[in-house]
């Protein structure tokens, strides 16, 4: 039972071989333009499918929004 912090909220994942890609997908962001940070470091898109989420990971998923 993997517990992570996603965009500041504690979230549980029912698998211990869950990748960033999978996380992005189940969140419905597969087609969205997002960037992912894992424990303070950028995870390039190319690495999303290779990066397995571990217990205690801090993950940020960001988008571009209106701003000045």
């Amino acid at each position: 039972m993997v517990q992570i912090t996603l965009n500041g909220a504690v979230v549980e994942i029912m698998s211990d071989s869950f990748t960033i890609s999978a996380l992005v997908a189940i969140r419905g962001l597969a087609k969205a333009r997002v960037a992912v940070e894992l424990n303070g470091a950028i995870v390039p898109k190319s690495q999303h499918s290779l990066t397995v989420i571990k217990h205690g990971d801090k993950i940020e998923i960001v988008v571009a929004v209106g701003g000045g």
Partner: protein
Amino acid sequence: MISTPDQFTIAGKQYSSRLLVGTGKYKDFAQTHEAITESGAQIVTVAIRRVNLGQDKSQPNLLDVLPMDKFTILPNTAGCYNAQDAVRTLRLARELLDGHKLVKLEVLADDQTLFPNMPETLIAAKELVRDGFDVMVYCSDDPIQAKALEDIGCVAVMPLASLIGSGMGILNPWNLQIIIDRVKVPVLVDAGIGTASDAAYAMELGCDGVLMNTAIAKANHPVQMARAMRHAVLAGREAFLAGRMPKKIYQGSPSSPVEGKIS
């Protein structure tokens, strides 16, 4: 007279519009799109925020409304109060935008004034330039630190005219004048523009461009104000290039001939 189109260059890319606009504070994406289209802006700023995991995924994303092939997207660091957060935010932006290098650095001092924190801004600018970013930097109107940001390698310096969102216009044209005289990279007034004449005035001082958001988004009719600003920046730029008449403090000067009057 200028026969060639009047373009300006940021980080090696030419732009014909000298009006840069933010994308915040609009009623909806439709208004955002209409206003920005009317403004004629080619460079638009965006903020980087956590994806709203709750929201309906069917609703459009800002970058669908303002596609990267039509606009130069300028991610900013709004809301960052230290160098580290700003650098981290722009690294996320670069990843988000497929390695896009042109960014707007703003490190704020507090949420009441949104005045730039200059010491942190200098630190962040150094780090970002070292990391290969093309940095357009929001700064105070201190001519010395504006020059220092150029020396660090920023591709544009963007002093405030007055506080972000205040609409107070250009409070100290003299400092801006010194910056324009001394800095070689483009100087853009960022923050404080409230209405069209403010934008025209900034351009008449010799600014290379103007960046605004609230003045358009919070006008009673944003789309119409966007059009006003497009004209204002053109007006101010043309007036600067045309070279204004000298001011004569006292004596009037007739526009009609003094000879040949009937008597």
